[in-house]
């Protein structure tokens, strides 16, 4: 720290970093800080995929101290009592990001080299997978296949959302498959066999899942049993309970016009719905970004330049409307997909923009530090496991809805592995503290695409498992390597 002392000699004009606004940056003079998703991206669907998890400024080696002759317009913050002899808090070695789109690309490249891969590998992978399958069979990107895929991913994707939260803590939940099966069984027995009201049955099924998760959390956080073991016990026990609940019947069919089946069989046939949802998402994303930038400028903290906001919005718009167009070619926007997207946005806001989310990241980044900051680590852990159980049961209900039945095989097989693989493939780190709920969507798209493409090509399940296994391994390797690169780039 001594060596970087910023003496007035090598900094002729003390500048006020905080007062350097985006306007000045756009004038080519100064230091624009951009903040990554933690900072500025609002809670809107940032399906734009470069969801980087660490906020960073800077990119080009140009425009350091000497290159800013014009920035004499330093305005100190009002009311900030500056210590005697205080020099503006700017480090002359700080690489300053160039303005405009070029700076954006440069920063992106620098992040990649620094190991902040975020969702880049999975998006590239997805593009390759889609290209290969489309080339092998032109039915792959057909409206029907894409529409089916979008419904297929919802059930496991919901489970994967819970897994993402658990992974953020640096833990694992192996029980989600069994919990999802149990929820489906409870619903079917209460609703079909006992004739209970469907809503009540759904409520009880979801509560049971959350309670199971909270129980795992209690044994893990309070008693201190490793999460791996607790949830392994859960995997066995809840599967046993499911078999008992189902009883001798084995399979209970859900009737075709029940709400639960409606969940995955309903489409909004009016094309206006899909386009409307896409338009709404894009508009609110843009509005939130602009509002945020305005507030930042008013408060005198760095904000995103307008060009970057427009690029992000454009990417989101292209994606959203392309999807809406494809879905409208078939039966329209599936209700299940809409629900999944709403859930993803809600969890994204929860994780990035609320106290609770901050606590989850803190515990995942360092338990002792979180504890000393006054965070109730036990409570956070129990809550996260309860959420995992809840999302497992939500997923279980969607899976039951798709096959219109609850059966003894529910929640077994490779459902658990798929849910965990999706989170990891999507870019959530196994090492805790890094990730986003959007990885549930991206990872499930990869897994679902492989499954559906293989089915189209008539390739057997055995091969499909091996390929999915390979993809998972690749994802974990990328995670580990990027973690190492981040360490050496000082971003570990």
């Amino acid at each position, binding site marked *: 720290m001594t060596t970087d002392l910023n003496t007035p000699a090598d900094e002729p004009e003390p500048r006020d970093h905080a007062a350097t606004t985006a306007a000045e940056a756009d004038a080519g003079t100064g230091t624009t800080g951009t903040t990554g998703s*933690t900072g500025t991206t609002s809670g809107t669907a940032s399906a734009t995929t470069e969801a980087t998890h660490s*906020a960073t400024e800077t990119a080009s080696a140009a425009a350091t101290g000497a290159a800013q002759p014009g920035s004499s317009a330093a305005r100190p913050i009002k009311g900030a009592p500056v*210590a005697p002899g*205080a*020099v503006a808090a700017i480090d002359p070695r700080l690489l300053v990001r160039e303005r405009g789109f070029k700076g954006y690309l440069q920063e992106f490249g620098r992040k990649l080299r620094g190991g902040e891969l975020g969702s880049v590998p999975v998006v590239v992978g997805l593009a390759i997978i889609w290209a290969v399958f489309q080339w092998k069979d032109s039915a792959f990107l057909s409206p029907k296949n894409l529409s089916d895929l979008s419904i297929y991913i919802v059930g496991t994707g919901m489970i994967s959302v819970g897994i993402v939260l658990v992974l953020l803590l640096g833990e694992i939940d192996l029980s989600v498959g069994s919990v999802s099966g149990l929820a489906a069984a409870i619903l079917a027995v209460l609703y079909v066999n006992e004739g209970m009201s469907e809503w009540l049955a759904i409520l009880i099924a979801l509560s049971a899942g959350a309670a199971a998760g909270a129980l795992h959390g209690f044994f893990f956080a309070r008693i201190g049993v490793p999460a791996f073991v607790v949830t392994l016990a859960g995997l066995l026990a809840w599967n046993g309970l499911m078999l008992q609940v189902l009883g001798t019947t084995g399979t209970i069919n859900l009737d075709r016009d029940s709400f639960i089946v409606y969940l995955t069989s309903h489409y909004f046939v009016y094309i206006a719905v899909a386009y409307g949802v896409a338009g709404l998402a894009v508009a609110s994303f843009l509005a939130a970004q602009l509002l945020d930038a305005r507030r930042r400028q008013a*408060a005198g903290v760095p904000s995103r330049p307008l060009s970057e906001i427009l690029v992000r919005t454009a990417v989101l718009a292209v994606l959203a409307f392309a999807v809406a167009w494809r879905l409208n070619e078939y039966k329209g926007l599936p209700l299940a997909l809409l629900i999944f997207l709403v859930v993803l946005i809600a969890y994204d806001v929860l994780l990035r923009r609320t106290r609770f989310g901050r606590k989850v990241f803190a515990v995942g980044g360092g338990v002792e530090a979180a504890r000393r900051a006054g965070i109730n680590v036990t409570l956070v852990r129990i809550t996260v496991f309860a959420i995992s159980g809840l999302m497992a049961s939500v997923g279980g209900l969607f899976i039951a809805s798709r096959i219109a039945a609850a059966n003894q095989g529910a929640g077994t097989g490779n459902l658990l592995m798929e849910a965990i693989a999706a989170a990891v493939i999507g870019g959530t780190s196994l090492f805790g503290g890094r990730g986003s709920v959007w990885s549930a969507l991206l990872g499930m798209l990869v897994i679902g695409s492989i499954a559906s493409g293989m089915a189209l090509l008539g390739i057997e399940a055995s091969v499909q498992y091996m390929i999915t296994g390979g993809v998972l391994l690749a994802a974990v390797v990328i995670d580990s390597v990027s973690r190492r690169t981040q360490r050496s780039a000082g971003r*570990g």
Partner: protein
Amino acid sequence: MTATPVLALRGISKRFGAVQALTDVELEVHAGEVVALVGDNGAGKSTLVKTIAGVGPADDGVIEWRGEQVRVERPHDAQALGIATVYQDLALCDNIDVVGNLFLGREITRAGILDEVEMERRSRELLETLSIRIPSVRIPIASLSGGQRQTVAIARSMLGEPGLVILDEPTAALGVEQTAQVLDLVERLRERGLAVVLISHNMADVKAVADRVAVLRLGRNNGTFDVATTSQEDIISAITGATDNAVTRRKARTSDAEDQK
């Protein structure tokens, strides 16, 4: 100092397995006073700090806050009282950025949503007031140097309007200018009427800012001295436990050598 002390420790004891780390330790800190807590390595200074901060509660003894007996069993309790602590082993989350760490556990929200703009503005203001220089308030803690992390940790302790600030070897990892700034800071805290407990191995720092020095030796009190009227030698002999110690012997040896020249 006749007023009730901000913090008073009475008969604090703490053991780790076979190690009796603290035995019947007493300590009083008044408002507007800097108390230096000194002692050799392993004397129990950090352990004492952790009992006050609720990180490692004491087995025995009483903590009084502004004259009233309080229980500090969790870090949260200490924070609620107004005790801010900068730990020797840093307590920052590597994966969270500077702003996030500064406000960890006391985030500002608007309608339940984190107010990142306000937190960032205040962070910049605070860092600027303390003349703390870091590349950006939006980089993860992992990319800061040890000293920079230390300054962030110190800045964090100032955020919650505390009544008592405990600094466990705050300058150990700092450069020349930063050390001076931290000492300035300690003096500013005193001027604002806060109570400060400063742990340091650096006698010059202690003499520069402290009003009183409390010495711990092998987990027990070994005297409290008024800095203005006590010589450095007396404090050192209290720390090492004898007037004849490695420091005085070394001094005698070097002055003998000089005499012979």
